[in-house]
């Protein structure tokens, strides 16, 4: 796991995400933001492991549940908060919102909110690399429930036929909205059990283990970079909270929730590297302060100017 920074640094990254998501939740429950938000509490290890494995400049595309991915890839807490708050300083100038965090300077090609639609776009990003020979490998993340939509199928088939440099990561958190994945797919593993349909290997990884994720994604990235084509990785993880801001997640059996809370990626990692409770608490405070400072800065930022309403519909001013 060479590419991973020091254990404490890794922990800090996960804690930063965790604290960020907690703050976002309160922003919505306090009514500071309208609309909806989708938190990734419990899925931090996938994001941090993926972010470490992918190289600088590698395009990453994710979903409305993408705060963890974008932050792990370097989106600043402040511009993420600002975007979610609809401020001018947000990464999309306040026009995107919580579901659409994007940062071109980081090759964060967007967070998408229509299920599956970003997967073909990610395939296009990878295709571009084979045309420009820029050596980049694209990473595309999506959820378990997304494996049942047509765009997933078309995108995986095309990526496989064209042997494109792309790593698909399915975050299997067992639910799509309020529905258990096993109620909507006829296979055990929604992604892994379908890899063979695209001539791909069956890859499953513990999504709550940063090291395992980093290793698996690194190997997939290497294959892709060597022209061996795409990989489809299924990362087993869990959504500790509900689907979106309003959902208490009551439909989940308590034993299941308890089991997974017992497998919290942060605790797992802290234990492995002997970071004790006190130190973990200190790191948590550190992360929280950083997050709070960013939130304050974001809250102080202005709303978009009224002109922003009409700007950037077109590249020129034509109507």
């Amino acid at each position: 796991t060479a590419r991973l920074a020091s254990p404490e640094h890794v922990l800090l990254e996960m804690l930063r995400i965790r604290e960020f998501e907690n703050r976002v939740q309160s922003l919505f429950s306090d009514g500071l933001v309208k609309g909806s938000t989708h938190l990734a509490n419990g899925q931090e290890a996938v994001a941090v492991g993926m972010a470490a494995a992918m190289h600088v400049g590698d395009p990453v595309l994710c979903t409305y549940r993408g705060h963890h991915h974008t932050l792990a890839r370097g989106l600043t807490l402040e511009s993420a908060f600002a975007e979610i708050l609809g401020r001018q300083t947000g990464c999309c100038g306040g026009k995107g919102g919580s579901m659409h965090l994007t940062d071109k300077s980081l090759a964060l090609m967007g967070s998408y909110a229509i299920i599956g639609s970003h997967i073909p776009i990610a395939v296009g990003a990878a295709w571009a690399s084979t045309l420009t020979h820029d050596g980049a490998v694209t990473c595309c993340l999506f959820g378990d429930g997304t494996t049942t939509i047509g765009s997933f199928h078309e995108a995986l088939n095309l990526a496989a036929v064209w042997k494109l440099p792309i790593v698909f990561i399915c975050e299997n958190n067992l639910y799509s909205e309020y529905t258990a994945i096993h109620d909507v797919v006829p296979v055990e593993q929604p992604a892994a059990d379908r890899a063979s349909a695209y001539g791909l290997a069956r890859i499953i990884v513990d999504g709550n283990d940063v090291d395992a994720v980093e290793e698996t994604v690194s190997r997939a990235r290497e294959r892709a970079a060597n022209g061996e084509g795409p990989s489809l990785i299924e990362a087993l993880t869990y959504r500790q909270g509900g689907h979106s801001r309003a959902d208490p997640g009551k439909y989940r059996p308590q034993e299941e929730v308890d089991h997974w809370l017992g497998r919290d990626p942060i605790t797992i990692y802290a234990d492995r590297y002997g970071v004790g409770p006190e130190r973990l608490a200190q790191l948590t405070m550190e992360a929280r302060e950083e997050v709070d400072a960013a939130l304050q800065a974001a809250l102080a930022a202005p709303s978009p100017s009224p002109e922003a309403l009409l700007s950037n519909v077109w590249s020129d001013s034509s109507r």
Partner: protein
Amino acid sequence: MTVINYRKANSEAIARAMREDPTVVFLGEDVAVAGGAFKSTVGLYEEFGPGRVFDTPISEQAIIGAAIGAAMRGLRPIAEIMFADFLGTCWDGIANHAAKIRYMTDGAYSVPIVIRAHGGAGLGFGAQHSQLYDGLAMSIPGLKVVVPSTPSDLIGLFQSAVRDPDPVLFIEHKALFDVKEELPPEGYTVPLGQARVVRQGSDLTLVATGAMVSVALKAAELVRVRGIDCEVVDLRTLTPLDLTTVLTSLAKTSRLILVEEGPGICGWSSEVAARVADEGFWMLDAPIRRVCSPHTPTPFAESLEALWLPSAEAVAAEIESYS
């Protein structure tokens, strides 16, 4: 007397249709056990059970296709597409199949489905969760389009939609969920193709749909103090289109302003304006004006979204600009 809000009217409308006709089934994502992403289908699964209310995978093309195929075999499926924006993921099934099968088979098969979709802006959902898709649907021959603006209309129009032998796109506006209204006695229906005059007036006609009806009414109040007396028409259904009610109003007022949520380009307001510019031309004393959203996607920021939506003030200003 029952007072009900627009959200509950959703489940009530479906329940009434399912009680009346055992061939009515309902499918969609999280509509059964969970009671809907907007909690607007709560209780249906409990009342009608797993044999008539179905949760589906995230597969809009399969949802629409399943509804079409079952309808061709005599059932009356109601299919929910959670957000109207997602109609883009199954447009082929709706526009190229559901709407055309009857014509292509010269009437051998018909496709009596109702597609429910939650549309509209104003809730901070951003560009991919705020569209209505009403104008696009209106352009498709063979597809009926309903856009209820009140709980009682929703329930009454829905009964007509389910009984209708043709495919119907039924667009419920998310921003109206909390609107309350007293219902007429059970068993009423509202026919498709009849607009409603929601306010009588003699100086100018305002035409609106969905969430814009209340905006038009507010605008009418704003200009009343200036002595301008507006008539307000709620189209209620876009296909069939009740142009007669619009023209009848115009005969009184000679002035027409159309208030459409969303960019009006090729929207219902352009079609109504075009029809009136032909059939109602000689009644017009002034240009036909449209107050629409700008021709942009829906911005996320609350401040921008508020600017994007036509406001009562903007409509009032338009009225005063030439009254």
